[in-house]
């Protein structure tokens, strides 16, 4: 229950809650205390160095392959008429079964003011799928815009690192404001206004049906993210992310954090798309020794890859009991 409340609170833009000292269990406090002076900076440096040699980008690689494969499957299904995955990211048929993006379906139902049976079937299927797979998993494992944004993010981080540009942040509640605005716009105007500017839909259609002028808008967004604000669309605007983050609050697939292994050096927070979810890795900020990362997490696995001390891991809640 705490997980759901904390997740929703962060999804809608509140700061991660800070535990007071008496809320933390003794064992956790002992861990925080015990570590002082235990590992020197040099030790951590060597651990990171060791880690980089052995690991890296395992999940990123899998994820990129998945994004490309899924979008390629859409394209192939159309071009060669194999009928595996027909349609686009907004709505499709997977070997005949209706799939509908939750947010697109919501926008349509708000604008059209009818409950369309096929959409109910499609959204139920998709809801169950992302419920099992982690909600915002959609963002980092399927959304074509995410992949492009990741690449421009690399440029942005490099530019900021070289002090060529300065990164700007926005208030995270902006995304909630957008969510309400787009829902109201659909309801009041009767047009699916968000679809017009959704880079996910635009890109998906461009991949499948060929490029168009709409790609210029996607280009502008990517330029904005490169030179002004890191991952601005996904962090501060996109209602699709909010919808799936809400689904993710009751998903069993999560990233878990173990305070015992953590050295708080913060590599995970530097690469995270939604770094507020990893605030619990800051020394003194966890509520417990073992915690799940809240549902705004896209389950991209970059923190799992980068963590030199195996403090962050994927888990499927309840699965270990069965196995």
């Amino acid at each position, binding site marked *: 229950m705490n997980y759901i409340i904390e997740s929703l609170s962060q999804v809608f833009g509140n700061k991660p809650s800070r535990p007071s000292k008496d809320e933390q269990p003794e064992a956790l406090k002992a861990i925080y205390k015990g570590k002082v002076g235990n590992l020197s900076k040099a030790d951590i440096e060597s651990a990171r160095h060791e880690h980089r040699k052995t690991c890296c980008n395992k999940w990123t690689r899998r994820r990129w392959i998945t994004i490309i494969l899924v979008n390629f499957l859409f394209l192939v299904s159309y071009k060669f008429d194999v009928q595996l995955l027909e349609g686009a990211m907004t709505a499709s048929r997977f070997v005949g079964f209706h799939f509908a993006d939750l947010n697109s379906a919501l926008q349509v139902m708000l604008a059209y003011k009818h409950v369309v049976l096929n959409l109910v079937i499609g959204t139920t299927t998709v809801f169950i799928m992302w419920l099992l797979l982690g909600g915002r998993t959609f963002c980092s494992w399927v959304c074509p815009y995410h992949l492009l944004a990741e690449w421009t993010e690399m440029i942005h981080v490099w530019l900021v690192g070289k002090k060529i540009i300065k990164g700007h942040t926005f208030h995270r509640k902006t995304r909630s404001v957008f969510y309400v605005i787009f829902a109201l*716009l659909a309801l009041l105007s009767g047009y699916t206004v968000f679809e017009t500017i959704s880079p996910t839909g635009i890109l998906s259609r461009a991949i499948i*049906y060929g490029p168009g002028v709409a790609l210029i808008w996607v280009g502008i967004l990517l330029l904005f993210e490169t030179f002004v604000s890191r991952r601005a669309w996904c962090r501060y605007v996109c209602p699709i992310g909010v919808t799936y983050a809400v689904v993710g609050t009751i998903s069993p697939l999560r990233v878990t954090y173990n305070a015992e292994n953590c050295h708080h050096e913060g590599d995970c927070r530097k690469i995270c798309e939604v770094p507020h979810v990893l605030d619990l890795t800051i020394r003194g900020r966890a509520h417990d020794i073992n915690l799940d990362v809240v549902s705004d997490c896209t389950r991209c696995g970059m923190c799992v890859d980068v963590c030199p001390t195996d403090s962050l891991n994927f888990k499927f809640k309840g699965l270990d009991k069965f196995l």
Partner: protein
Amino acid sequence: MTEPTKKKKPILSKNRRQSNRREFIRSAVLTAGVVTLSLTGFIPVVQGTSSRLRPPGALKNLLDEQKFYSSCIKCGQCVQVCPVNAIKLADLDEGVGVGLPYIDAREQACDFSCDGLQCVLACPTGSLTHDLDYPADTRMGFARMDKPKSCLAVQGKGFKGVARGPDYKGLLRYDEIDRWNPLPVAEHDYDVEICDLCVRQCPIEIRITQCVEKEKKREEAKSAGKLARVAEQHGNECPPKHAIEMQVIQDRNGLMTMVPAVLDGCVGCGVCEMICPVEGDPAIVVDIDKITDWG
């Protein structure tokens, strides 16, 4: 260890407060900017420039396409099932209509060669309404003689050769050649004394001919004492109302001339516009609203 005090609002430094204020202003500007941009999508709708020929069964009446806009989820499944690739998706210049399916009849009309209205069946939201059963039930638009002076029939001319030139990419079903696969128009030679391509290729007129033949067969079978199959007995939408025919009229000089006349049964599929062999703009076009000012 400090005393477990009640959480107080932390007192922020001046710098922190200033940066918070800046962040707030930036966020407000971002919100206003993105919302304004998304609202510019209404411009083509307000101007009415985004109205186009839509696939069969599109939820709309005359020029009001609002329901079609709202119910379409912009997935393009209708595009994927069309055997002649008549359906395309609108681009961002159509504003909130981005991703909405349309048909450019001159380039590739809907010739109903799927028979079963597959785009309607594919639509996941009922934006192409399932109320349609047969091609003849739809009213995508209405054909209109736009440039009677350039019409070959009006000029008393015939037509010989391929309708739209050898480089034309469009497809049509030529029932007598291949029932199941649409063929390139560029591979089909015509040789007619008075041009009647728009009537000849009209899917509704072709359907009527089929109905007549079927009826004849049924009569024959009946007289031979055999029972027709149930499907044949009930037929489907047989015969639809006539859509277009060649009429004889008298021109200004008192000469008799032929002219295609659009009739009530026209569904606005656009095949006449597509096949019209006149170079450049076709003599006959499909309007998306019902306006007939000639014929």
